[in-house]
Structure formats: C-alpha cells, structure tokens
C-alpha cells in the first residue's frame, strides 16, 4: 500500500513535469533546426547546431535587450516590494477608516484592459519626457505589479498571529522598526514568491514595452523577440525565435533556483509561538 502510494506520487510528479516541460523541450529541439526541417515533427534533437543562437545575438543587440529587461524587471520588483510591504503592513495590521475602499480602489486599477490605458499612458510617458527610456517602462510596469503585490502581501500579513507585534510595541518600537525587524523576516516566503511572480510579469510584458520604446537599444526582450523577422515580410524565423525564447527562459530558471530556498525556508513553528 505504502509502495503503491509512493509510485503514484512519483507518477504524478513525472506527469506534471512532462506537461510543464514538453513545450520548452520542443522549443529547445526546434532551436537547433532551421528551414524546411521546421515543418516536420521531431522528438529527439538530430544535431547540435548553434547557428540560430549566434544569429540572435548577431542580428540585433540582444545582450543589451536582456540587460534592459533585467533592469526594468529588477527595478519594478524592488519598488513594488518596498512600497508593497509597508503598505501591506498598514492594510493588514492596522485598522483605520476607508481601508476596504482603498484596497478595492487599488484592485480596480487591475480591472481595466491593458489596451485601454495604452494611449493615456503613452501621453503620460511622453509628457514626462520618458518616451523610449528604461525609466518610462519601469513606471508603466508598476501599474501592472503594484496592485497584485499589495494585495498578496496584505493577505499574508493578516494571516500572521496578532501577538507578534504586540511585544515589540510594548517595548516601544516604532511601526517602521516593527515592519523591518519583525515582519520582513516572517514574510520572506511570501515576499520572495510575490517578487518572483512580479518579476516574471514585468519580464514578459509586451504591449507597453513595444509602444513606449522606439529603438532596438532601448527595447526589452519580448518586443525584441516579436520584432524578429525572416528575410522577407511573411517568413517567420522560427529557429531564431525558439533560440531566443530558450535564452530568455534561462535567467528565470536561475532566479528560481537561487531563490527557491527562501520560498520554503519561511517561518518555523517556533517563530510564532512567542
């Protein structure tokens, strides 16, 4: 019985891994192929041809695009988390009038389709003189990540036992110190998780990045990939697009592997008992 359960568990793990991984695996295989080959099915790589990978970097400043993406996503995450955690403390631990209304207003920002805010945002960015700059993109992306960050962190903040901060307050700590010394460590799994999700949202953002930049040097990765063309108008450089997708997925995988300990190394039972 126990062995059966074990086998079942591993089968499940295997199935989930297959489902998640197969399209990526197929992208890796496709990135080694080119031309007519791409119109047929293959399950195993036939050869190890890096020509598409070279093409990605030769035909455009793709290294620069990756750096731009890192800069944008990194800044967006840092700002969202910094503003989000303090706001989450206020929303989650302190009761004041208008709290629900404010929270709902913040959520409301996420209720408009992106295309609807596009042209207003375009005007805004131009009037700040941030058109075709990285700060412009950071500003625009904050709109996408902040409501989410604030809400998720607030929820987690509320779930922490009430006793945690009382001791600190009695000892005369200011709210700021409470947030930094008491909640930041406890919130680590939630903060890392939200940060990671926000990072990916910003990393993958396409519409703003396409509209608010003009030159290849200022673009982030998704528009750079979408702008790849074959030698003529209708031809799709499938191999190169796949190679580029594989390249941009690697930093995310690295990021997860680095931070994954923090996702789970959260509070231990002892920390809450007090």
């Amino acid at each position, binding site marked *: 019985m126990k062995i059966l359960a074990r086998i079942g568990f591993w089968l499940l793990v295997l199935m989930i891994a297959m489902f998640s991984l197969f399209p990526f695996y197929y992208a890796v295989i496709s990135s080694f192929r080119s031309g*007519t*080959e791409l*119109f047929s099915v293959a399950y195993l790589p036939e050869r190890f041809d890096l020509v598409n990978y070279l093409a990605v970097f030769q035909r455009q400043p793709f290294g620069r695009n990756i750096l731009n993406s890192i800069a944008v996503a990194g800044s967006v995450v840092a700002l969202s988390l910094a503003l989000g955690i303090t706001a989450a403390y206020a929303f989650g631990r302190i009761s004041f009038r208008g709290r629900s209304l404010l929270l709902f207003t913040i959520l409301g920002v996420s209720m408009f389709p992106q295309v609807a805010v596009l042209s207003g945002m375009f005007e805004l960015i131009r009037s700040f003189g941030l058109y075709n700059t990285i700060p412009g993109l950071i500003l625009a992306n904050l709109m996408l990540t902040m409501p989410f960050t604030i809400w998720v962190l607030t929820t987690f903040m509320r779930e922490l036992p009430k006793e945690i901060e009382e001791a600190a307050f009695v000892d005369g700590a200011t709210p700021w110190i409470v947030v930094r010394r008491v909640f930041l460590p406890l919130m680590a799994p939630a903060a890392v998780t939200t940060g990671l999700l926000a990072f990916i949202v910003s990393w993958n953002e396409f519409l703003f990045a396409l509209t608010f930049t003009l030159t290849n040097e200022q673009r982030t990765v998704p528009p750079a990939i979408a702008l790849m063309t074959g*030698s003529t*108008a209708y031809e799709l450089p499938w191999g190169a697009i796949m190679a580029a997708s594989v390249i941009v997925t690697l930093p995310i995988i690295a990021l997860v592997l680095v931070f994954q300990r923090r996702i789970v190394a959260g509070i231990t039972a002892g920390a809450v008992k007090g």
Partner: protein
Amino acid sequence: MPRFLAGLLAAGGLVWSTGAWAVEISISCSSLGKEYEICKQGVDAWAKKTGNTVKIVSTPNSATERLALYQQLLAAGASDVDVFQIDVVWTGLLGSHLQDLTAKVQGAIDDHLPTMVETSRVGGKLMAMPWFADAGLLYYRQDLLDKYKRPVPQTWSDLTETARLVQEGERKEGRGDFWGFVWQGRAYEGLTTNAVEWVSSYNGGAIVDEKGEITIDNPKAAEALKAAAGWVGTITPEGVLNYTEEESRGVFQAGNALFMRNWPYAWALAQGADSTIKDKVGIAPLPKGGQDGRHAGTLGGQLLAVSKYSKNTDTAADLVMYLTGPEEQKRRGIQGSFNPTIVSLYGDNDIARANPFIGDLVDVFTNAVARPATVTGDNYNKVSTEFFNTVHQVLSKRAEPAQALSRLDRDLKRIKRSGW
C-alpha cells in the same frame, strides 16, 4: 566596419554641407534579415549623397501590430519617425496624418503601376509613394501535374478537379496527409485578400466599387463563396480555417499539397537549398471563376509616406523620392527580389536575370484587384472585418453563402450610413 565607415562618411558629409540643413531623418522599414540589409544599403546611399543622416527604426513584423504602433505615434503627433513604410491598405486610414506629396512628385508618378498609384491616393491627393508590389499567386507542383498529365488549371473548377484527382492518387500510394489546395483562411486580413480574389475572379466585384457603392450581395459572389466552402474538408484541410501565410507554406513546402495560394515571397523559399520541393514548383496567375471570369490576384505591397508631424518634411520627402526612384527600385529588384512598381523595370534585363519569372508578374500586377481601402478610408478595417468574418462563417459551414452575403450587405450599409 562598413557601418563605421558609412557613419564616418555621413559625418564628413555633415561638415561639408554647410551644416545648416544636414538633418537626421528616421525611417521605419523592416527590422531584420535581408529586407533590413537592403533598406539600410538604400538609405545609406542617400545619406552619403546628400550629407544627411538616416536612422532606421524597427517595427513589428506583424502587420496589425505595426499599424497599431503607427497609429499610436501619429495620434500623439510624435515627430520621432519621419518616413513610414505603410501597407497598401493603410493610406486611407492614416491619410490625415500624412504629408501631401502631390506637388513634390509631379510627373514621376506616371511611371508607376496604375493599380499601385491608386492605393497611394486619398481624395485625389498623393499621400504616399509606391515602393514595391505584391499580389496573390498560384503555386503548383510541376512534377505532380506531369505525373497525372494535367495542365496548369485555368479555372477554379479545373483546379478543384485536378486537386481531387491528384489527392486521391497520392493517398492511394500511402500518403495519407496529402492535400490538394492550401491557402489562408484564418479570420484576419489575409482571408479578405483570399476571398476578394475568389469573388472578383467570378466577376463578383471587390466588396465596394470605386464609387463607394456596396456590391457584395450578388449571385456571382455567392457562387464564388460556395465553391470555396466546397473545398474545405475535401481538397483543403479543415485546419486552413486558422492558417496564415506561413502555415500554408509549411504544408506546401513539406511536399504535402499540390496547389497553394501565396505571395511571391514563398518562391525563393520553396526554391531554397533545403527545400523538399526544389525545382518541382511553378507559379501562375490564380484561376478564373469560369470561362467568362478573370484571373484576379489581390494587390499587396508597401508604400512610403512622410509624416505630417516630421520636423523636416521636405528632406524626408527627398528620401522617399530617392528610395522609390528607378535606380533604387532596380537595385532592390536585383538584390532582394522586391517587385518594382515602375512599369519599365519589368523589361529590364538585369532584373530578369535575377528573377526569371518577373516577366509573368507584370500582368498579374497590372490586373491585380485592389481591396476597397481607398474608397472606404477610415472604415476600411470595419468593412474588411465584417467581410472576413462572414466568409469565415460560410467556410466553416455555419452560414449559407446567399443569406450570409445579404446579412453582410445590411451590416456594411449600417457602417456606411450616409457615406464612408
């Protein structure tokens, strides 16, 4: 290194040309690959000649995304891009943001294909210059036609019959995934181009006529759509209802289809070194609707236009004139197989040597059907969307051609109201 040299030369030119009127022009042409290289060579040559500098701005590959980006820039009155490469159906849509080139161009326009010139005008004014032409073509497998002793089809019913025969024959030989005819049936602009070809080959008009009258609700058009709906599931895979250009080329180039409707770009790729069908392919005008029908390929291609918000409209217009001039079009024709819009270039020996089939194309372009973009202006996208959605419904057999067309007629009249 060449880029550095060009930069140096341009900088040198800047110093020479008294500085005062040497300016920087930015142009949006295709972003990558061969098209980019060839565009770059062209603008560099102009920059060298005039002492100005040119910056190339990359735009999305997908036509809809590119149009959206242009509209965003133009609606904001942004001067970031001076020269736009636009599709033939966008002139009416973007016209109000473009610089009138009539005075600048004068007589030179008469050298160009009349069909292309027509797409560049809005209300009699020339808002863009033709750059290169495109039109729908029929691709066929010569080897298979020989094997089954069939001629290149002249009418759609010939095509249907030949396709059925060859498809049956090939499938009997064990090629279960072989199909007769592939084209573009996804609910997008491409379906409009395909369907306009069918309808006008039956003499059913092109949705709206030159005077702006809605003509689509006619028996010829219904006949054309009925024939096309008959292909789906018989000689054409049902999946075609979500194919764009590349998906159909995929089927054809893998050797799994006898006929394909596509643009001229597919030729060079089908003849590429790694192609399974190299030297087995031929191209021809698309079939006629019947004996009294006509060969109709939908006109495509690109124009160059100058933004009204440009700070240097005059210099930008000079660049447009240079790029669309005979010298540059010839170079582009030889090096990049871009089909010229200047009629006399079709008799040019150098171009003919580089593109053996170019002589056949001049007839296709001269007789090409234009989509009703100019006459419907701002409303073209609405007309086209209503049209391709109606056709898509007929093709997926959820509507009868005649009823669907009369419904379309009613919807188009509502869009038109008092005028386009």
